[in-house]
């Protein structure tokens, strides 16, 4: 950490909405959002408040990115094998 992330704070302030989803609501909607994205559907316009939450919440965003990677591999019928994952730790 090089110092306080003031630029990040200003971005957060700019993008603040009056009504934002909670992390639990994000968790509930996340699988639908990911599947829409993986299917090439307009996830951002279908679930705009979820996108807004992901842009504000680092932990939810990290989880979203990981689920999206897994769902992509699953949809392409090449999910990583348990053995390969264990061997690459």
């Amino acid at each position: 950490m090089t110092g306080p992330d003031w630029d990040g704070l200003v971005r957060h302030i700019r993008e603040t909405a009056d009504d934002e989803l909670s992390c639990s609501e994000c968790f509930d909607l996340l699988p639908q959002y990911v599947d829409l994205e993986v299917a090439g559907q307009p996830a951002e316009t279908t679930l705009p408040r979820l996108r807004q939450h992901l842009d504000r919440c680092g932990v939810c965003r990290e989880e979203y990115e990981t689920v999206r990677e897994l769902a992509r591999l699953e949809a392409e019928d090449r999910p990583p094998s348990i053995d390969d994952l264990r061997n690459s730790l």
Partner: protein
Amino acid sequence: MKPRTNAEWLSALKATGAEQAAALEDLRVFVLRAALFALRRSRGNLGLMSPAEINQLAEDCAQESLLAIMQSLDGFRGESRFTTWVYSFAVNTALVAARRERWKRVPLDRLIEETHPGASAGWRAPALADPDRQTLQAETLAVIREVIDRDLSVRQRQALKAVVLEGVPLDELARHWGSNRNAIYKLLHDARRKLKACLAERGISVDDTLGLFGAER
């Protein structure tokens, strides 16, 4: 493993005997895969943990996720693939565990520090070469600090400093305070709304201030 539709997953997991046992065995493959995948992706948070320890952590996360999934089956609304829904449980559990591992030795009390009015004066911003930009940065920072010190509650100040300025994960701060992620997010949301309103009242355009604090770092 035989591919299943959403309905087939639900039916098999809610069945009894051999049918349910087979479905649980298959489900375990999905959650363990997701836990291992998430922990490997988050390897930087796991410090000196050996591969064997990470593997054990993944097994623990998979077990915890399996229980949570079975308890939540009636909440599956069918708006996604069942496997994507399952992945979201295991990824959440694994990444929360990885963040806990990364932050467990960090003294959050000292990092958050305090919080009395005026404390934000010690939070430094980078110097800028352009005098006009430096002036705008100073004006913006003065307003932000004033609002932080005058209008935010102690908890809001602490959460803002920890999560937004210092990068402490929301769930780690929640754990530290015996709270939950939703409550911390709400605390931060209220603080951001207050800051946004006060900057607008002072006629400061947030768009104009973007880049003033990080571009030359």
